[in-house]
């Protein structure tokens, strides 16, 4: 498949900015009678204060506890009474709040998001309750299951030295329990001004109506200065770092390797080959590492590679990494897997066949399009493109930009993944022993 045949989504995108600094993205599409409304705040786990691991996520929960005109749990009740669904999610570099509703609920969703943008109801009781809920979430997702937090929570402390990059973004129970109302208010004051947010609406509406509603509900959200985003830069590794830990519930050895890669925003052109490389290595049975490690050598039962820690190459900042993770058969040897990866990277570095590259690009394009199938996914992608790349329409161009990645640049990317720049985390299975 050549670049010219990669299809682009066919919906219009309009962007504007309110006087208070809120950036707004509108993407009308009458295809189905639903709307997606997303608000993305430019703050994530990297910005939480030292000694308060997990705070960005805990604060996300607090944003559902009520606001000036909305009582506790009423956000959910209002959205659901409109026939809609909602959620929020906290990421390394951003936090998003999103709603999907039948189109008649557009104004309601805008009202609710504007109301909490003016400030959530942060009380002792709500905070204590949500600390309990978050602890249960961590038990479900990390503590009570095998491979919890592997590798996204386990690898950063090996690769990085500074608190913003290295710490556990889900948080320690001690830090969560120590969180105070004053700290939550300070976090809101610092990171939740309208000028640090993007509102994105996709689906069944007209631009004129939506623009009026946005002005009506968000226009009087007070203007406050956006935070200055500090640099999180750290020097690259110049020697391999390797650690291991015992997971009492794991039954198979596992390993994740990571290498620092160019900045996804400021060095986008240099970053894109790594996104393609990840797919070339592990997407499907025709990919290099699945063919080699799983089917030929049988030294891994599953292998996956992706750019950025949470596999969101277009919603991340630097410093970040390309990760390759593998699960091994019982008793499998991690060094054998790492040697196989090294050999395959060397083969890619020698050159990539255009036909193979074309197939990989077709699959990448289809996967990006699939995330636009839902107007909720679409509104979130448009918003993060605006936050990270300063241009929501970039969300519709990533597939084409990836299509322009050359075989030479993919080979160079593979050549840069040398053992001396590698951070490695190994899971030693303790389960069933």
């Amino acid at each position: 498949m050549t670049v010219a045949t990669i299809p682009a989504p066919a919906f219009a995108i309009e962007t504007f900015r309110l006087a208070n600094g809120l950036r707004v993205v509108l993407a009308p599409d009458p295809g189905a009678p639903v709307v997606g409304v997303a608000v993305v705040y430019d703050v994530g786990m990297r910005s939480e204060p030292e000694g308060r691991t997990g705070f960005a996520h805990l604060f996300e929960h607090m944003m559902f506890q009520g606001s000036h005109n909305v009582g506790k749990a009423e956000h959910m009740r209002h959205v659901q009474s409109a026939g809609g669904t909602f959620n929020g999610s906290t990421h390394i570099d951003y936090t998003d709040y999103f709603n999907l509703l039948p189109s008649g609920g557009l104004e309601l969703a805008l009202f609710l998001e504007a109301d909490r943008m003016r400030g959530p109801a942060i009380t002792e009781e709500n905070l204590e309750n949500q600390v309990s809920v978050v602890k249960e979430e961590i038990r479900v997702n990390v503590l009570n299951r095998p491979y919890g937090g592997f590798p996204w929570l386990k690898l950063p402390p090996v690769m990085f030295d500074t608190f913003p990059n290295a710490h556990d973004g889900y948080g320690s129970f001690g830090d969560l329990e120590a969180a105070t109302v004053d700290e939550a208010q300070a976090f809101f004051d610092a990171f939740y001004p309208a000028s640090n947010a993007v509102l994105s609406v996709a689906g069944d509406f007209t631009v004129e109506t939506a623009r009026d509603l946005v002005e009506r509900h968000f226009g009087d959200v007070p203007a406050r200065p956006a935070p200055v985003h500090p640099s999180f830069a750290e020097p690259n590794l110049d020697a391999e770092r390797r650690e291991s830990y015992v997971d009492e519930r794991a039954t198979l050895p596992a390993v994740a390797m990571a290498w620092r890669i160019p900045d996804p925003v400021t060095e986008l052109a240099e970053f894109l080959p790594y996104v393609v490389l990840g797919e070339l290595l592990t997407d499907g049975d025709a990919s290099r590492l699945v063919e080699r490690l799983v089917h030929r050598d049988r030294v891994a039962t599953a292998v996956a590679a992706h750019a950025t820690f949470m596999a969101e190459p277009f919603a991340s900042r630097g410093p970040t990494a390309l990760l390759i993770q593998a699960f091994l058969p019982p008793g499998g040897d991690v060094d054998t897997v790492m040697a196989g990866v090294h050999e395959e990277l060397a083969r890619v570095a020698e050159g990539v066949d255009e036909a193979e590259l074309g197939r990989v690009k077709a699959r990448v394009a289809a996967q990006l399009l699939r995330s636009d199938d839902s107007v909720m996914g679409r509104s979130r992608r448009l918003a993060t493109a605006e936050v990270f790349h300063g241009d929501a329409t970039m969300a519709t161009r990533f597939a084409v930009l990836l299509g322009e990645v050359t075989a030479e640049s993919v080979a160079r990317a593979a050549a840069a993944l040398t053992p001396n720049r590698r951070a490695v985390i190994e899971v030693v299975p303790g389960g069933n022993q």
Partner: protein
Amino acid sequence: MSTAIPGLAPEVPLALPTPVERALPNGLSVSLVRRPGVPLAEVRLSVPAAHADLAVADMLAAALFSGTEGSTMTQIAQRLQGVGGALGAGADPDRIAVSGNCLSSGLAELLDVLGEILTAADYPAEPLAVEQSRIIDGLSVAEQQPEFQVSRALDARLWGDHPYGHQQPTAAEVGDVDRGAVLALHASRVHPAGARLIIVGDIDPDGAWAAVEKSLSAWNGAGEPRRMEPLPSLKPGPIVLANRPGSVQSAIRVAYPAVARTHPDNAAQHLANLIYGGYFTSRLVMNLRESKGYGYSPRSRVDHSPAGSVQLTSVDVATEVTAPALAEIVAELRGMAENPPDEAELDLARRYALGSVKLATATQSGIAGYTSALAACGLPLSWLAEHSERLRAVTAADIKRVAAERMNPDGAVSVILGDGEHVTGPLADSSEIEVL
């Protein structure tokens, strides 16, 4: 509470696409749904497989794309990848299912690959051995997951000797499967008679039909279809405690009877389940999560399967609050009949239910999934419109009656997976317990 909450704009009616229904002479039913949006096509194929050996069926599904008489696994994967596509397969007690997607411009190529594997999958020995090891390794991990462990215990307790009672084969069962058994299962059961293919997306139905005819007409044979018997009735009894030493949470599962989608009470049951625990604004979530902080995602759902329906409460809570959480679940269930919803509570759930149908059918993958799930119970996509009308007619009296009949904790089956050392004592204070 100073500013008025905006009301809703006039409701836009549900607008379901009308599938083009066709059938091939070999018996394959085909639903084609044009749903523009993104230039993709979603594909779902369901082949009836009642009473197939599940370990063999899992192996068949895992190795379905491992090679044919004419193509290697790599060649098959490359052809799919070239049209931005992917196909996967899975098995459950009712069926063997293939699902995937591709750029809509590549649909004919994807169907051609599908036709080749359905007619000529060869399960070559080496890739089959790889898949066998992967399933066994994957099971060893799954068997450490509380969700998997409690589902296995619950299925066994609920359904006993019915095929639904054993939905996850053991590593030993998978290890015993040989290539001959997989080939025999394919030969006897992977046939178009009774099978359904669903294609949804930015497609031209006539063009898609031509591609289906070209690629799937050669798939043939009537096979040996077998019927799945209906699920047995629930048999209430002591709480089953599955011990998981060291578990930091308890997985509480409470099952109670449900009626099928076609039953006159189904719409009331749908809303009663929502009010009790089926959405965030429900009694269960407000109590267990937002008031007590016991669990992250307490929930209740109605499961409709071809063999029958059941309602299920699922709550994962910290070990130390296991007994109080169970007491709250029981109280909330009982409360559905003793403290039935008023009009406002009912109307909120109704609006949520009506909206959910719109949201679920707003995407290509949603329409494909809903069409497939309904077809498995013998219903067309248009059933959703009829169901929406029935939801509008449900009264508070209906909810009370349905809750009294089927949401009574005395008729429920409860299974708890947790650290027996810490939860047995507190549970035994109020309930009869059977420790596995």
